[in-house]
């Protein structure tokens, strides 16, 4: 259960893709990750996320104006915040990842990623959900509260080290069903 994704076969580092080049032109550094199933995937530093998103959304040629989803992933040594970007008007696609190293996270605190909810309403509930389930704190979010679980829930269920609450309502151990 706690296996990490198998290491990818090392790919040749390609040059920046369409969106990576566009961001580079506007002075935002990105790292190109291996394409996920043919979709350009870039890693970006949290500090530049908001600026990059504004650029990508506003530009007329890229026009990635459709934020499909924000996901949180508890990877082997990082917490990833993954943004799927599409466009309403053309066929561009982009996946942006913001990675926070687990070693950088202060003990007892949550990893921090800037929030997009202030200027992109679609991000609002997705970020709340990711905060709820994976435990990534989106700073600058107007209303960052748990959305699916009750408000004073302990822990973040989709973390690999989550210990399930056992009580009168739910006392069978996970996996006992199978």
């Amino acid at each position, binding site marked *: 259960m706690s296996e*990490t994704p198998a290491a*990818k076969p090392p790919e040749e580092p390609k040059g920046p893709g369409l969106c990576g080049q566009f961001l580079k032109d506007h002075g935002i550094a990105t790292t190109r990750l291996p394409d996920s*199933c043919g979709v350009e995937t870039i890693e970006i530093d949290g500090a530049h996320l908001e600026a990059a998103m504004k650029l990508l959304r506003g530009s007329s040629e890229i026009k990635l104006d459709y934020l*499909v989803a924000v996901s949180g992933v*508890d990877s082997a040594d990082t917490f990833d915040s993954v943004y*799927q970007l599409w466009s309403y008007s053309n066929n561009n696609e982009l996946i942006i990842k913001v990675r926070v190293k687990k070693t950088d996270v202060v003990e007892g605190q949550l990893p921090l990623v800037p929030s997009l909810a202030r200027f992109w309403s*679609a991000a609002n*509930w997705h970020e709340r959900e990711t905060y709820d*389930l994976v435990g990534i704190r989106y700073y600058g979010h107007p209303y960052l509260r748990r959305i*699916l679980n009750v408000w004073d829930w302990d822990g973040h269920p989709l973390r690999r080290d989550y210990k399930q609450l056992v009580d009168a309502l739910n006392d069978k151990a996970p996996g006992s069903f199978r």
Partner: protein
Amino acid sequence: MATDTEVDLTPRLKTDEMLINMGPQHPATHGVLRLILTLDGEIVRHTEPILGHLHRAQEWQGQNRTWFQYQALIDRVDYLSGMFTSWAMARAAEVVDGCEVPERAEYLRVMVSEMNRITSHLLWLGTYLIDLGAMFGFPFYPFREREKLLELFEEIAGQRMMFNYIRIGGVMRNPKDAWLSKLKKFTEEFPDRVDEYEAIVTENPIFLKRTKGVGILRKELGMDYGITGPSIRASGVNIDLRRTKPYSVYPKLKFDVPVNDRDGDTFDRYIFRIREMRQSNEIIKQCLDMLPQGEISGKKQIAGLRVKAGEGFAAVESPRGTLGCYIISNGSDRAYRIKWRNPSFCNLSILPELLKNHPIADVMAIFGSIDVILPDVDR
């Protein structure tokens, strides 16, 4: 009083806002949504949706069940269109795995999921009329057609609602010829039935009064919130993955995607669903004619089903909008992470904006019109 020279201008009658708690148990919240409405008289000033009353940890299940087990579970993500949830995950897994899907399977997938779109819209139509207060009478008619389709589903998949029919790599079962002819018969009857609904509903003056000009969704606002599906097409955004990001055999099929030319209101969202049902019926007809012979699964359906390592995102156009699935696989028999992008979840987030300054009776009209399924929201 003589000493009082100033006139008291403060209003004598103090009015107060009233908080009303709607749900989680309420006949019109389609299950278990809870809305905390701030009312000024009967006008809604602020809405606070509270979700998660049906949070069944589908994503957590995805990490803890094998692929084969999880396939059976995901119909429950959106129980009115189980074919689409299955298909979204199957597509994502196929994209990651790189396995081929036989053409016959693709046609069957299109067929059953369009059938499922019809059942979903039919149920929506019935419940929407209940929301508008037609408690008896009309709501029963869409169910009549829905039952016919459910019988067909039962014949091909063994279940009325939780089909588990579309599997990673293909579909589960080959339909018999009798089934295909029954379906053909249904497609021939169905347009007449839709005419019947339209005759009862579309020309009903009270229905028109209740829906026209209510809950206008501006195009830009909808795009800002990431709304998809008929709700945004009724507001003039042309996003239908079957056409804009074509998948499966949709490019080979002839059908229109109805798109509005103005900001849509509740009535537009109704009429566009009706039109979509007609289009779906056309698609099924074409599929029946074009259905090729051949294999139906490109992957062996065994308990130890594995998906190659990698990550990928794939989406299908469900009756409610873009239904996406983001998979990270590490090559083992279960997923490392599965994230669902549910159309209802995103569409629901616009509800507070739409409800603002509408009377409380319109809460149902608007909430019903964006067609939200609660397990699709809460997972």
